[in-house]
């Protein structure tokens, strides 16, 4: 049985050998192979290409789009989503999801504002906001892993509710005006037209890039996402890696809290509503897979900027806000379809590999 299926599969593949076949067959095989490679490469840098296309189109449609003032606006408006997506990327790389980041952002901003009412110190306020995010993320990670939950959806959904509730309770449901100058300049300041928050994001993105591509810990994140069972068998500390990505995601939510609070000079329990969905959308638009192990920092940032640019462009073109939601939804569907297409191309690619070997 086994033998015969093996044999037929094998002969199916060898029917058109690449190296010894007729010249024309060989060439078309090689062209097919090149085409597949090209297709896969295009899909890999696809998000960036689409972002460029959208930007070019917008620059024709609106003379205001490419002005430094507008670009500064886009970046400042996108900064919080971008930093959330960096955290969300790490979580999604491990096949997880963090639904709590928007609420955590709000809670961090409220905690920061409250701390500022009693302690007049920028660094203390910043530390308080970072610590809030870190704490929420740690709780997410530990409850998920140690509580042996089937999926992080549940705990982070619960935390979405808990953190928002805490923020409302602590603030009495009202925004709290006033942030230290250093927070204001992180969230709202700029150097020339370039927002300080964008510089901060680039710095953080660089750190996450180094983590994911150069550091053992980052390699483990990809390994755990690619094959958790194999990761366990090779001795990778899977549970610690899983907890760590939720801790980092929480920390990023704290940073996003600082940026948002600084931009609006306040802490508020209503900040960051639906921001968790924006961050997930950004990561998915950036080509990451919910099946884990796929995605990178550059593409996640591109996804976040894409959302910001689409919103900005439609504001400039005075498109109804309802349409913005629809368009972003369509982009998400396209991104997921691109992922499916990649899967198909990779299957074809494997067949070619079997034929070539």
């Amino acid at each position, binding site marked *: 049985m086994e033998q015969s299926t093996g044999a037929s599969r094998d002969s199916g593949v060898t029917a058109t050998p690449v190296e010894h076949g007729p010249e024309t067959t060989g060439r078309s095989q090689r062209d097919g192979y090149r085409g597949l490679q090209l297709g896969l490469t295009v899909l890999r840098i696809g998000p960036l290409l689409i972002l460029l296309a959208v930007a070019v189109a917008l620059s024709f449609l609106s003379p205001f789009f490419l002005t430094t003032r507008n670009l500064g606006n886009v970046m400042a408006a996108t900064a919080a989503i971008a930093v959330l997506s960096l955290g969300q990327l790490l979580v999604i790389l491990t096949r997880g999801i963090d639904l709590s980041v928007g609420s955590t952002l709000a809670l961090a901003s409220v905690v920061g504002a409250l701390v500022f009412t009693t302690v007049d110190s920028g660094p203390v306020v910043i530390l308080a906001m970072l610590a809030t995010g870190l704490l929420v993320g740690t709780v997410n990670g530990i409850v998920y892993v140690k509580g042996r939950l089937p999926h992080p959806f549940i705990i982070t959904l619960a935390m979405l509710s808990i953190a928002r509730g805490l923020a409302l309770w602590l603030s009495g449901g009202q925004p709290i005006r006033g942030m230290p100058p250093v927070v204001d300049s992180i969230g709202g300041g700029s150097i020339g037209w370039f927002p300080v928050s964008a510089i901060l994001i680039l710095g953080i993105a660089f750190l996450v890039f180094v983590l994911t591509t150069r550091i*053992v810990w980052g390699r483990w994140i*990809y390994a755990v996402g690619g*094959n958790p069972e194999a990761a366990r068998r090779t001795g990778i500390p899977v549970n610690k890696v899983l907890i760590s990505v939720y801790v980092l995601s929480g920390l990023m939510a704290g940073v996003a809290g600082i940026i948002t609070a600084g931009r609006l000079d306040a802490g508020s329990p209503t900040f960051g509503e639906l921001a968790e969905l924006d961050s997930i959308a950004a990561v998915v638009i950036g080509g990451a897979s919910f099946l884990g192990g796929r995605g990178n920092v550059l593409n996640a940032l591109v996804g976040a900027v894409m959302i910001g640019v689409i919103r900005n462009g439609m504001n400039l073109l005075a498109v109804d806000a309802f349409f913005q939601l629809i368009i972003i939804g369509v982009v998400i569907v396209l991104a997921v379809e691109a992922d499916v297409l990649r899967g198909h191309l990779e299957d074809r690619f494997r067949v070619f590999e079997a034929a070539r070997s």
Partner: protein
Amino acid sequence: MTSVTAVPALAVRGATKRFGAVLALDGVDLEVHRGQVVALLGDNGAGKSTLIKCISGVHQLDDGVIEMDGLPTAIHSPAQARDLGIETVYQDLALFDNLGPAANFYAGREAAGPRWLPTWLRVLDRKGMASRTTELLDRLQVGLPDMSSQVGLLSGGQRQAVAVARAAAFASKVVILDEPTAALGLRESRRVLDLINRLRERDHAVIVISHALDHVMDIADRAVVLRRGRKVGEEVPTRENQQRIVSLIVGGEG
């Protein structure tokens, strides 16, 4: 043939393992010497996978002993089995499809520095790992089209070869393979069998689970047959006694 030392590299004596009411292993003995390939045969549910999982630290024996080079050894975890020089190629290959060959080779034991940092914070020695992986694959004559592409883009045979080469690279004593040719075509199977022969030449002790008796005849020095958790026979596999081995497996005789 190959040099066979008096003390087996790995010996299992009286291995017994229960899963609730199921007696998966019932007093099984197994010996493998360096430079020897032992085939583990048996019908589905005979206990083959359970036995090798006990050797590779995934399960613990309820009863019985495992000896490495004649010394009784407790194997509590996969990591410990690896430290003892036992590498296992599981049926599912345990590859990371999203990573390249080098990252797969070194998963969980990445070459990285500096030493004063905790392991998880160290900087990957990407070049070193890539060049050593290429070298190892070359030595085992595993040709890959592209050393940088993800393992998920390789054919079944190439993936199997990467998994076997990874085991060979890090095993100092024993390499265990669970159904290494089950998912492969003829030509790709041939390559993996060649690879197993090379492991023997390099003086590894090899245990192979296989349903393909042709392959077993080809590569195994001995065949151990399990049925319902018991060892029911041990033969030198040849064309002549193939029929007898088959009947041991299915339980036609005795």
